[in-house]
């Protein structure tokens, strides 16, 4: 591609793979009805990123990803604890964890930013994502982890399908729900933590939610939904990165999300199984079907009256 530095090509590849992985995990989240969980967990990852940075003293992606994963898991555990041991509902629990962890992250961030040399660390870019700030080493770590998640999702396709649609039956067949839930949470957290560098903690949830919802408009089959969602996710990752690379210092995350939102709008109107146009045509047909017999009935009644 012309006008792209080798680094930009690497970055493009990584957001492509990231988008694909998050599209697939997003489908799982959609069917678990936990779309907003990804939002809470990505916000909750911020303190971990910063603590990871402080521990090493420089920007070292694997440690920061590890920190992010731990703090997201702590957040998930807290949400579970609040929900199961008090009368507060899950949505409020997510809101609490999201805002408190993020506030804590901001607190740490402004502490760390005062330290010498930390100003150049690019920690701020974790909030809105700055894919251009990634180096080849980061890209390798990211892509490797994303491929790992993809592999888990694809190898255990049958098990996922069973677990998502009929957990009780799955349990009966000997597929432990607990185990699948843990694997799911691990995949979700992995996708989130590798995504926050490129997309940012605030908008990472969009990459998990929007492709899955868009794919839902095209098909009723779970397999196709996964494939489409992966395509949408990968596509919006790539398009968004391209757009932000051409601007000067523009944040990547928002552009990726806007690309995803455009794909969503297209799916919403044109989608071949639940799209607006298809629905309108179906409704029109139904209405005509409904009207015809009624006319006949009416005329029969009128005939009876006149007789």
């Amino acid at each position, binding site marked *: 591609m012309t006008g792209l530095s080798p680094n930009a090509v690497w970055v493009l590849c990584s957001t492509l793979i990231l988008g694909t992985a998050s599209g697939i995990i997003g489908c799982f989240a959609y069917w678990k009805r936990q779309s907003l969980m990804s939002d809470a967990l990505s916000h909750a990852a911020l303190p971990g990123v910063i603590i990871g940075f402080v521990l090493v003293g420089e920007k070292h992606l694997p440690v920061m990803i590890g920190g992010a994963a731990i703090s997201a898991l702590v957040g998930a555990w807290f949400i579970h604890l609040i929900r199961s*041991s008090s009368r507060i509902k899950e949505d409020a629990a997510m809101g*609490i964890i*999201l*805002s408190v962890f993020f*506030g*804590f992250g*901001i607190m740490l961030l402004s502490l760390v930013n005062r330290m010498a040399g930390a100003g150049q660390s690019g920690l701020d870019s974790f909030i809105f994502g700055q894919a251009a700030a990634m180096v080849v080493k980061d890209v390798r770590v990211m892509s490797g982890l994303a491929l790992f998640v993809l592999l888990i999702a694809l190898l255990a396709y049958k098990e996922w399908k069973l677990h998502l649609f009929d957990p009780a039956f799955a349990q009966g067949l000997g597929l432990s729900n607990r185990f699948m839930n843990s694997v799911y949470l691990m995949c979700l957290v992995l996708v989130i933590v590798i995504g926050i560098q490129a997309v940012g903690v605030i908008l990472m949830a969009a990459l998990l*939610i929007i492709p899955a919802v868009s794919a839902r408009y095209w098909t009723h089959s779970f397999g196709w939904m996964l494939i489409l969602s992966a395509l949408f996710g990968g596509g919006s990752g790539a398009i968004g990165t391209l757009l932000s690379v051409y601007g000067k210092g523009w944040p990547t995350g928002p552009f990726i999300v806007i690309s995803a939102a455009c794909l969503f709008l297209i799916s919403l109107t044109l989608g071949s199984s639940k799209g607006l146009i298809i629905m309108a045509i179906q409704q029109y047909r139904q209405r005509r079907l409904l009207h015809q017999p009624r006319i006949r009935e009416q005329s029969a009644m009128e005939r009876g009256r006149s007789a």
Partner: protein
Amino acid sequence: MSYAGWIILTASLVGISCGIVGSLLLLRRMAMMADAISHTVLLGIVTAYLLTRELSGVHMLIGAVIAGLLTALLVQWLHSMGVQQEASIGVVFTSLFAIGVVLIATRVGNAHLDVQHTLMGEITFIPWERVELPWGADIPEAVLMLSIVLVVILAVVIGLYKEWKITAFDPALAASLGLPVTLLHYVFVSMVSVTTVASFDAVGAILVVAMLITPAASAYLWTDRLAVMMALSGLFGILSAISGYSIAVWLDTSISGSMAFATGLVFLLSLIASPRHGLVARLLRPSVPPSP
């Protein structure tokens, strides 16, 4: 009044307004809706700024209310199209927020408005941006605006207290009694938007979400009465503002971040020590609940 005094007063006003609105929010199970609105309000503010080229309070309030209502309408519409409630919230607010951020990054950049500011607020500068009141006293602009918003919210909540209570606890009953449930829903959404935007400029989006949900959730663990819950959650808001400010001064760090963190501490304390719903009370209680 001293510098610290003004800051704590500002944050406390935010805490009280958010505590009252947040209690209703929690009971209506709209906690994540508040998160969504606090993000999309950004788009409203940016659009208002692009249209009028000024950052006055009134324009921003109108823009924010429109953005908040738009969010609620879109979420409702998508939900009626067969998308799960959660997923539709996720789609709507991330998209609108992204548009807001891109507008700021590409068109408004370097102006008074920047993303960092909207997220974390500029509470440090509040005491210096003053307005003159008719009777001569000068107070910070944000304090004036937050006081007006608080009065409006108090008026709406107290004036329609019965209606809020019944729609929060039993919307079906409310509808069967002939109450305009949908209208009340949108009035409530506007209230959340107004609270959010008034607090937004002062303390940033993070603290708004924290102040809306967390103190109300803490209060919910202490009491079963709506009025007491509102009062308590306002009180917890003030408590978090004061302790958050002390933490921020002690560590020399972000004030709104620390206040958000402090709301979490208050919640943790409530979760552990609340007499009826706390973890300790649960442990001490006999495992078989006594028959009533």
